[in-house]
C-alpha cells in the first residue's frame, strides 16, 4: 500500500504564484455555500454563551428573561427585514429544517383540501427530497421544468395548478446559478387560486429586498449562515393574516415557537441571525451595488481573455454576487485543482458524490459536457476588487493551460464538431 500523504486541495502549498499586494491567500469566493460570520455578529453573540446563557423558555427568573429578550430582539429584526410581524417568525435549525417544516407542515395541515404540490426541478435538495418523501405518502408532486435562463414559465405554473393543489414551493434565488424567480407573480397566481406559496429564500434574504407582503409570500425559509450569521440557525416565516396559514409541527415536544417547532431555542444563534438581518437591512442597498460591480468586473475580465465561455442562467434576474460560467473543453474539477488558492465550486460530476453533473445546469438545457465545465463564483461582503482580479487571472491562466492539454479543444480548433464524433464511452 502506498503511504502518500493526502492533503485537501485547499491546503496544497501554493508555490508558483505570488499574491499581489493586499490579497491574502487562499481567497474565499464560495459565498453561496456559506459565508464567514461578520465580526459585528460575533460580537453580538458572544455574551449569550456565558453571561446570558439562560433558557429563553424559563419564565421565572432573570436568566430566562434576558435570553428571551435577546430572542425577541432578533425576531423583531428579522420581521423588519422581511416586512412581517414578529409572531410570524419561527426559529429553526436552518433552512433545510425550515423547508421541511414548511412543506411537510402545509401538506399535513391541508391534507383534506388536496394532495397536490408544485415545485421546480432546480430547487434545492431540501425541497426536492422533501417533496419526494411526500410522494411516498400519497401526495402528488409536479416538478416544473425551467426555461433556458433558469426561470419558470408562469403559464406552465398556471397549467400545473388544479383543484387539488395545496402548495406551490419555488425558491426565490437559486443556490447554483443565482437566478431570481418571479416570486411576486408566482405569489399572485397562488393567492388568486387559494394555494399556499412557500419560497426557499435562503440565498435571497439579506442580499436583495424581500418583502413578504409585496411578494405575496405565505411561507418562507431563511438561513443564518448565508448572510454572515452563524450556522445551525434559520427561521420560517408563516403568514398569520390574509390569508392565515398554518403548518403542522414536524418536531414534537415542549411546544416552543407557538407549537410549531419544539426544542430549546438556540439563543446565541438566533441573536446572531437577528444581528445579521439588521446589518443586511442597513447595508443591502450599497452592498448589492458593490457586489454586482465586482461580479461584472470578474465576468468582463474573464470573458475579455477567453473564448467559448458560457454564462449559465439569466444575467438580468440574478443575485448580485453570483456568476456561474462554463469553460468549454475544460473539466471543472481539474480547473479547481489549478486554482487551488481560490475557493469556488464546480458543477462537475467529479466534485459531487453522485457522479452526475449539476442537475440545475442540466435543467437549463446545458449539455452534460458544459455542466462538467462549470464553475460557480459566489462573491460576498468581504471580497475585494483586488481579489476579483487575482481570481480572474488565475482562472484565465489555468483554463488556457488546460485547454492546451485538452483533446476536445484541439479537435474543435481543427474544425471537428464534437457533437458529430462517435464517442467510445457513450
Amino acid at each position: 500500500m502506498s503511504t502518500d500523504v493526502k492533503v485537501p486541495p485547499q491546503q496544497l502549498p501554493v508555490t508558483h504564484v505570488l499574491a499581489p499586494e493586499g490579497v491574502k491567500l487562499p481567497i474565499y469566493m464560495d459565498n453561496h455555500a456559506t459565508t464567514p460570520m461578520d465580526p459585528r455578529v460575533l460580537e453580538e453573540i458572544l455574551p449569550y454563551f456565558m453571561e446570558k446563557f439562560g433558557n429563553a423558555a424559563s419564565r421565572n427568573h432573570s436568566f430566562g428573561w434576558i435570553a428571551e429578550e435577546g430572542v425577541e430582539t432578533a425576531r423583531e429584526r428579522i420581521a423588519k427585514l422581511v416586512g412581517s410581524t414578529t409572531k410570524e417568525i419561527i426559529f429553526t435549525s436552518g433552512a433545510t429544517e425550515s423547508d421541511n417544516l414548511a412543506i411537510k407542515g402545509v401538506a399535513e395541515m391541508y391534507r383534506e383540501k388536496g394532495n397536490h404540490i408544485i415545485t421546480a426541478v432546480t430547487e434545492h435538495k431540501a425541497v426536492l427530497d422533501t417533496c419526494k418523501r411526500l410522494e411516498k405518502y400519497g401526495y402528488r408532486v409536479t416538478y416544473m421544468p425551467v426555461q433556458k435562463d433558469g426561470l419558470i414559465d408562469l403559464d406552465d405554473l398556471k397549467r400545473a395548478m388544479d383543484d387539488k393543489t395545496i402548495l406551490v414551493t419555488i425558491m426565490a434565488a437559486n443556490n447554483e446559478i443565482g437566478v431570481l424567480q418571479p416570486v411576486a407573480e408566482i405569489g399572485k397566481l397562488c393567492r388568486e387560486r387559494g394555494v399556499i406559496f412557500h419560497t426557499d429564500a435562503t440565498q435571497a434574504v439579506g442580499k436583495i429586498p424581500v418583502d413578504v407582503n409585496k411578494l405575496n409570500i405565505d411561507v418562507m425559509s431563511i438561513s443564518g449562515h448565508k448572510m454572515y450569521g452563524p450556522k445551525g440557525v434559520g427561521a420560517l416565516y408563516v403568514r398569520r393574516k390574509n390569508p392565515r396559514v398554518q403548518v403542522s409541527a414536524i418536531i414534537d415536544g415542549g411546544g416552543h415557537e407557538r407549537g410549531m417547532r419544539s426544542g430549546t431555542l438556540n439563543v446565541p444563534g438566533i441573536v446572531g441571525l437577528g444581528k445579521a438581518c439588521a446589518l443586511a437591512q442597513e447595508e443591502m442597498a450599497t452592498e448589492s451595488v458593490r457586489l454586482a460591480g465586482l461580479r461584472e468586473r470578474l465576468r468582463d475580465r474573464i470573458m475579455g481573455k477567453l473564448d467559448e465561455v458560457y454564462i449559465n442562467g439569466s444575467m438580468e434576474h440574478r443575485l448580485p454576487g453570483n456568476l456561474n460560467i462554463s469553460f468549454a473543453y475544460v473539466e471543472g474539477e481539474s480547473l479547481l485543482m489549478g486554482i487551488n488558492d481560490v475557493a469556488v465550486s464546480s458543477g462537475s460530476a467529479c466534485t459531487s458524490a453522485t457522479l452526475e453533473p449539476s442537475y440545475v445546469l442540466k435543467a437549463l438545457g446545458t449539455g452534460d459536457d458544459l455542466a462538467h465545465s462549470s464553475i460557480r463564483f459566489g462573491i460576498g461582503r468581504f471580497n475585494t476588487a483586488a481579489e476579483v482580479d487575482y481570481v480572474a487571472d488565475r482562472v484565465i491562466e489555468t483554463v488556457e493551460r488546460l485547454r492546451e492539454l485538452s483533446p476536445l479543444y484541439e479537435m474543435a480548433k481543427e474544425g471537428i464538431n464534437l457533437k458529430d464524433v462517435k464517442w467510445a464511452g457513450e
Partner: protein
Amino acid sequence: MSYSDKVIDHYNNPRNVGSMDKSSNDVGTGLVGAPECGDVMKLQIRVNRDTNVIEEAKFKTFGCGSAIASSSLATEWVKGKTVDEALTIKNMDIVKELSLPPVKIHCSVLAEDAIRSAIADWKKKQETTKPVAVEAK
C-alpha cells in the same frame, strides 16, 4: 476530495503532452471516453516497425486531475516498452502508483483503454499497410 502527491505532480507537470500525426503509419491513436461523461483521453504512440518498441508517446486529456495524471503516467510507462509489454499494463497498477481513491478508479480504467486502443489502431495500420508495402517492392 484529496489528491496524492503523485497526482498533483502529474497535474502540475504533465509528461509527454502533445499530438502526433494520426495519419502516419507508425503512429497509433487511442481516443476514449466522452465529453458528456467528463473524461476524454487521447493517447498516441509511435512504434518502431522493426523492434515493435514504443519510441514516443503523447497524450491530451479532458478530465479531472486524476484522469490527467493517469494518462500522463500511461505515456511514461509505455515509452520504451514493446507493444506486447505495453498491453500488460493494468489499470490497477495505475491506481496503486497514483494512490487513486475508489471514486477515481474509472480514470485508470480509461487510461488502460487508451493504451489498448492506441495499440489496436497501430496494429490495424500494420495489417492494412503491409500488402501495400509488398506491392511497392
